[in-house]
């Protein structure tokens, strides 16, 4: 039972990150009716940007020393006489990294938002009003462009990336079994949930959120009501790539940086379809359940079977509910 809880919690934590990635795909779909097949590769770029700003730039000679490792006097004092592996030590290790974590996150979000804007401007805008098939295929072409560009730019081997939060192990007992959690994972989950909730609230309550929903409802009517549809498109892409940057940074600290981060996007795409393309709630449910299912598969069948869980799940759901768990049924006119 305790082990079950351990795996369930692990599943919920990775589910939260799936939800964070899914929010980017859903936002772009809601506003532009385009499903971004290359979202995983945007995330990969986010991870590499985080690596650049948090590891490469602080490591340069011209960078100020406090950026690489922040060691004010009081911290050095506190460090004196600490035991190895003490929780306070882990927090202090993290505190020394705070400047470069913040620098890295800001840099990653800004650069990725710029990249998203660039993609929208140069590739999506010219196709506005054309068939959706062409737009989706453009994102498929984007996969090759982005993955080629990433391996062209970042040739260095990706090294250690600083964790976003102190990585202290947390142990507690449930039903007589020990449950292990890592501090960083919990903070990652909280960040993911906060961003997810923030975006859902934004779409629901703010003026620009209403504009996005109106565009999703009917593009030409929204246009004639004075909503600048191109601006909405642009905003959706910026939003998606900025959240993608945060997700990329989190994934980089969890699994390391590698080109396979791009493939991660496909499993999230499966999750999004499973939840219903235009429903934040459905995607959240799908992300959490796939996260838990993956963890359970890992527990019962072994780690490698976990990687096809999202694909099997989406196939099963699509056969019974063609528009996903909570997706809106498309009305077709002949």
């Amino acid at each position, binding site marked *: 039972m305790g082990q079950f809880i351990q795996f369930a919690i692990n599943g919920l934590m990775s589910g939260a990150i799936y939800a964070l990635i899914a929010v980017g795909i859903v936002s772009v779909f809601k506003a532009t009716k385009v*499903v971004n*097949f290359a979202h995983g590769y945007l995330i990969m770029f986010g991870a590499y940007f985080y690596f650049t700003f948090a590891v490469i730039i602080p490591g340069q000679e011209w960078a100020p020393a406090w950026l690489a490792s922040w060691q004010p006097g009081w911290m050095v004092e506190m460090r004196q006489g600490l035991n190895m592996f003490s929780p306070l030590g882990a927090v202090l290790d993290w505190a020394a990294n705070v400047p470069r974590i913040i620098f890295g996150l800001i840099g990653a979000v800004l650069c990725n938002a710029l990249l998203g804007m660039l993609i929208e401007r140069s*590739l999506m805008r*010219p*196709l506005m009003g*054309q068939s*959706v*098939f*062409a737009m*989706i*295929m*453009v994102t*498929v*072409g*984007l*996969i*090759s*462009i*982005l*993955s*080629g*560009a990433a*391996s*062209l730019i970042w*040739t260095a081997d990706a090294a250690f990336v600083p964790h976003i939060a102190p990585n202290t192990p947390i142990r507690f007992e449930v039903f007589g079994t020990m449950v292990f959690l890592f501090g960083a994972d919990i903070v990652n989950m909280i960040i993911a949930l906060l961003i997810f909730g923030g975006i859902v609230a934004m779409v629901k309550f703010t003026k620009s959120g209403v504009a996005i929903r109106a565009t999703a409802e009917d593009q030409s009517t929204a246009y004639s009501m004075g909503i600048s549809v191109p601006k909405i498109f642009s905003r959706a892409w910026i939003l998606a790539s900025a959240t993608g940057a945060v997700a990329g940074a989190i994934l980089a600290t969890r699994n390391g940086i590698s080109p396979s981060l791009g*493939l991660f996007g*496909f499993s999230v*795409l*499966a999750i999004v*379809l499973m939840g219903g*393309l235009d429903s934040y709630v459905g995607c959240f449910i799908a992300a959490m359940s796939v996260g838990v299912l993956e963890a359970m598969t890992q527990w019962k069948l072994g780690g*490698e079977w976990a*990687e*096809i869980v*999202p*694909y*099997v799940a*989406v*196939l099963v759901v*699509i*056969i019974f509910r*063609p*528009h996903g768990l909570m997706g809106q049924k498309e009305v*077709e006119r*002949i």
Partner: protein
Amino acid sequence: MINGNLKADYGADERVLNNRNKQLFVYGSMLLLAIFPFVAGDYAMLMACKMGILLIAVVGVNVLTGYTGLVSLGHGAFVAIGAYATVVFSNLFSGLPEGILPLIVIPLAVIVSALVGIIVGLPSLRVKGLYLAVATLAASFIVTFLIEQDLFAPWTGGVNGINTPTANLLGWELDTKREMYVLITVLALTTLLAAQNLFRTRVGRAFIAIRDRDYSAEILGISLLRYKLMSFAISAAYCGLSGALFAYFYARILPEQFELDLSLELVAALIVGGMGRTMGPVFGVFIVMMVPELIKIAMGAATGGSLELARYTGPVQEIVFGLLLVTFLLKEPLGINQITDRILRSANRWPFARG
């Protein structure tokens, strides 16, 4: 001149090559293909064989995406199934005389592929467009994952791949690239002709009706269930044939050769060449295979063959591949076939109105 297009009877009007320019083009290219193995170097032979194998698969994707309008991003999996079925059946029937083995194994591989195609096509009855694209993508991930599993490793070799047999047609051992070229070219031309003729039949017309509007097609009495699954089966069968040739052509096959990259290459070749046209796959495959080669040659010349810079070749090829797809979608969505159509039309009408 357009006057050359005058037809005196229905028979002449219904011919595949219904004007002189088309005849000239097709018979001319067949002649070139026949001469090719006598003049080409080994590397050119290798490229030609690769193109032929890819072409058969792209023709398959064309049946599904171009003519029936069902988007698939997972056709690499059918090629994988064809290739692995060839190896598995060859090992299974190893008691039979070698000369007739491929004659049994290739059709079996094609049939297995078609059956899997029907299974993968099942979601197409419920979903279409984007959802179908993701469903096929998911199916292809599952297929390559299963091939890699230790569970099936005794038959598939798992992640390490498996050695493939040599084709032996009635005692003629096809152990060089030049001999394989003959088999591949003959089969590629046959599949092209078969695809062309498919769309002059009732079945092919039903596919086109489904592409244009599936509900309207259903109202006209076309069974969506039957024809969508048939389209999936035919398309997967072509890919299975391509996979069988793939297995015979290479000495060893690996699961990673059939992953997403292959599926994307198939779709990209189709879009670049022109969807829903017989010659589309031919042009598309030519461009998709030749452009990376040209980049390799150009990069080699520009960097003077230094190993330091050679590692940039792969990424540059990848970027150009993506740019090719994107550029065609933005500038010429109907593909190269549209360009050649324009040229042919003006040739037909010469010296009168152009365009």
